[in-house]
C-alpha cells in the first residue's frame, strides 16, 4: 500500500485524529507495557501524525501492547492511542503478499494438537 493510503487506512480504521494530541504524555505514564515497547504510546500518536506508519509496522512493540485501554481511558484529549496501535496491527495483517494461507499449505499445518477450527478460521482470515 502507498504511504498516503496507509496513513488514511490507519486513521480511518482507528477513527482517531492524532492531531488532537497535546503531547501531555499521560498515555505513556499510564502504560503497563512501557518496557516492552520500543515506541511508547505518545510517540506512537506522533509517528502516525507524521506519517511514519511503515516504521511502526516493522516495530515489534506493537504486538506487545496489551490493549488494556488504560491510555484510551485516561487521555484528556480523547485521542485513543490503543485504537491507533490496533489499526497499525491491522495494516500489517492486511498487507498484500503477507500472511497468505493457501489451501495446499493446510495439510502440513494439520497437527493433532491444533483445533481444526483454528485452521479453518485462519484460512478464512488470511486466504486473500
Amino acid at each position: 500500500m502507498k504511504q498516503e493510503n496507509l496513513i488514511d487506512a490507519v486513521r480511518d480504521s482507528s477513527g482517531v485524529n492524532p492531531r488532537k494530541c497535546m503531547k501531555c504524555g499521560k498515555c505513556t505514564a499510564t502504560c503497563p507495557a512501557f518496557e516492552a515497547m520500543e515506541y511508547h504510546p505518545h510517540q506512537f500518536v506522533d509517528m502516525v501524525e507524521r506519517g511514519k506508519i511503515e516504521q511502526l509496522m516493522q516495530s515489534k512493540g506493537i504486538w506487545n501492547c496489551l490493549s488494556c485501554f488504560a491510555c484510551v481511558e485516561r487521555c484528556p484529549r480523547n485521542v485513543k492511542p490503543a485504537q491507533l496501535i490496533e489499526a497499525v496491527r491491522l495494516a500489517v495483517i492486511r498487507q498484500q503478499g503477507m500472511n497468505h494461507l493457501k489451501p495446499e499449505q493446510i495439510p502440513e499445518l494439520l497437527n493433532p494438537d491444533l483445533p481444526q477450527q483454528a485452521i479453518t478460521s485462519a484460512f478464512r482470515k488470511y486466504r486473500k
Partner: protein
Amino acid sequence: MMHRIGVFVCWCGSNIAATVDVKRVAEELGKQPGVVFATDYQYMCSQSGQELIQSAIKEHALTGVVICSCSPQMHETTFRRTVSKAGLNPYMLEIANIREQCSWIHKDKETGTEKAIVLGRAAIAKVQLNAPLKAGETPVTKRALVIGGGIAGIQTALDIAEAGYPVDIVESQPTIGGKMAQLDKTFPTLDCAACILTPRMVDANQQENITIYAYSEVEAVTGFVGNFHAKIRRKARYVDETKCTGCGLCTEKCPQKNVPNEFNLGMDHRRAVYIPFAQAVPKIATIDANYCKMLQEGKCGVCSKICAAGAIDYKQQDTFVEQDYGAIVVATGFRPISMEKFDEYAYSQSPDVVTSLEFERLMNAAGPTSGTLLRPSDGTHPKTLVFVQCVGSRCSDDGRGKPYCSKICCMYTAKHAMLCREKYPDTDVYVFYIDVRAPGKNFDEFYRRAAEEYGVHYIKGQVGKIVPEDGKLKVQASDLLANEQLHIDADMVILAAAIEPNPTARSLATMLTTPMDTNDFFTEAHPKLRPVESATAGIFLSGTCQGPKDIPETVSQASACAAKVMGLLHKDRLVGNPCIAQPDELMCNGCSSCEKVCPYGAITYADKEFRTFEGMKVRRVAQVNPAVCQGCGACTVACPSGAMDLKGFSNRQIMAEVDAICK
C-alpha cells in the same frame, strides 16, 4: 404623500466596490419612485462622506435617506447622527446592508450588483412608510447591586461607592472574602493573601455607601437598565445581627463539635455555631441549622445561655429586602471542579492526595495544621511531594474535564513548590507539567526561580496513575523529554484541579436574561471592545464569572466594571429605543397573548370605552409601558388579531420590503 428620498451608495474602499458595481446601483436606485437624488462615494462614514449626505439633504429637501453600506451594526448610530444634524428625524434613515449580506458573500460582480439593487429597493420601500420617531426617556436609579462578595465584588463595590453611589453587596456565605480569603500566599510576590485582602474587606464594611448583605441570595430580578428591581433573601442566621458582637464565645462552647469546616475544605471541624475565620466581615456568628441540636431536636440551647448580648434567636426566619437598582454587577466567581471523575489519581482513596486549594489551607497559619505542612493521613512531615498540573483542564469535551486552560494553576503550583522548598529544604518536589504557561508580569521569572533557585524538579509529562501502598503514594509518570517512565514513591500528591464557574451562575443568568457560554462563564458584550459589559444592558461582569483569571486581572477587571457602572449611574435619564410596541386598540380583543409572551412585563390591560354600532361599550385592551418595552417584537408575532405593531418595524413596512424584493 411621497417622501423625497436620497440614496447614498458606499464603496467601502474595495470591500463593496470590488464585487458590486456601485455606480450602476446608484443609477438604478435613482429611477425608483420617490428617489430624487442618488450617488456613490468611497467612504460614506468618513467626514466628507457625511458632509455629502448633509448637503444633499439640504439641497434636495430630502425627507428620507437610504444608505447602502455595511451592516447597521457598524454605522447606524453614525448615520442617524449625520441626518439628524441636517435637520431630519434620525428614524427617517434606512440602511441597506450591501457589504456583510452582499459584497462579502458574492464572488460574481453581476450577481452582487443585482442583489445590492434589490436590497436598496427594499430599503426605499420601507423608508416611504417611515414616520419620525422620538425616543422616550427613563430615569436612572442611582444605586448598584453587586452579586458576589469575593475580591472582584469587593473591588467593584468599593470603586462605585467611592464615586458617591450607594452599592449593595449580596454574598451567599456568612462572610465576604470569597476564594481569596482561603489562599495562603499570592504569586508572584508571595505576599500573604489575608494581609492584602482583609483591609479591603474592612474598607467595604466601613464605606458608608456600601451595604453588605452576607448570608443572602438574590431571589428575583425584574426591570431593565437603570430601573432594576431585586428581591434579596436574607437567610436566617438564628443570630440577631444587630446584637451579636462577634466575641466568638458561642463558637467555643457549642457542644456540636464535628461539623466539617468548609473554610478549611472539610479537613478539620467547626461547631454548629461558627464564624468562618477570624477576620470575617461581618463578624457575626451563624448557626448551621443542619447540625444545631436545638434547631434539629429542640434540646441544647448552650449558645443562647452563654451569649452575653442575647443575640441568639432560634425562631429567626428568612427575611426579604426589596430594592431598586440602576445597574447590576455579576461577580459570582469560581470553584475547583470535583475530582471524582479522576480516580486514577486516587483522590478518594488517600487523604494524602489533595487539591491545590486544600494545600493552601494546609500551608496556612489559620489552617487545620496551623501552617505546618503535615500529611493528612498520619500527621508526619512529607519528604517527597508530587504536583500534577492540568487535572481536568484542557480536556476534550467528553464530560470528564473542561476544554479550557484554567490559567492560574501553573503559577500557584510554582508558588506551592517554591514555598515547600523554602520552608522545608529537606523535601524533594516534583512538578509534572504539559506546558508551563507564565505570560504575566514577573510570572516567567517567578516560575524560573522555582526551578533554578529552589531546585524544584520540573518534568515535562503527565502522571498516569497513583496507587496508595504501604503508606506511600506510588506515582507512575512519564518524562517525555527523556522518553522514560518514572516511578516515584511520594508522601503527598497535589492536584491542580481545573476551575469552573460557581454552580449558581446558570440560574442567575436565566434570572438576568444574560448570555453565558457552553462552560457557564458569562459572555461579555464584545470580547475585545466591551469586555466588562454583558450583552444585556445594565448588567456588568466582574472577575472569574466571565472566565478564568488571577487576582491582578480580577482586580483590574473589577475596577473597569465599576467605571462602566459609574458611567451609567452618572446619567440622570436614559434615552430609550423609540422602536417599541404599539397596540391598535380598535383591533385588540384583550386576549392576553401579548402579555404572556412579553419578557419584560411591559404589557398591561385597561378597560376603555369604545363607540360601536350598538352605542358605547367597554372593552379590555392591551397597553404598552414605553419605558419598559425593549422592542423585541415577541408580542407582534403572538397577537392573533394583528393589533400589535412595532414602531419602525411595522407589519406594513416589512411587507413593503418583501414586495420590493419580490417585484
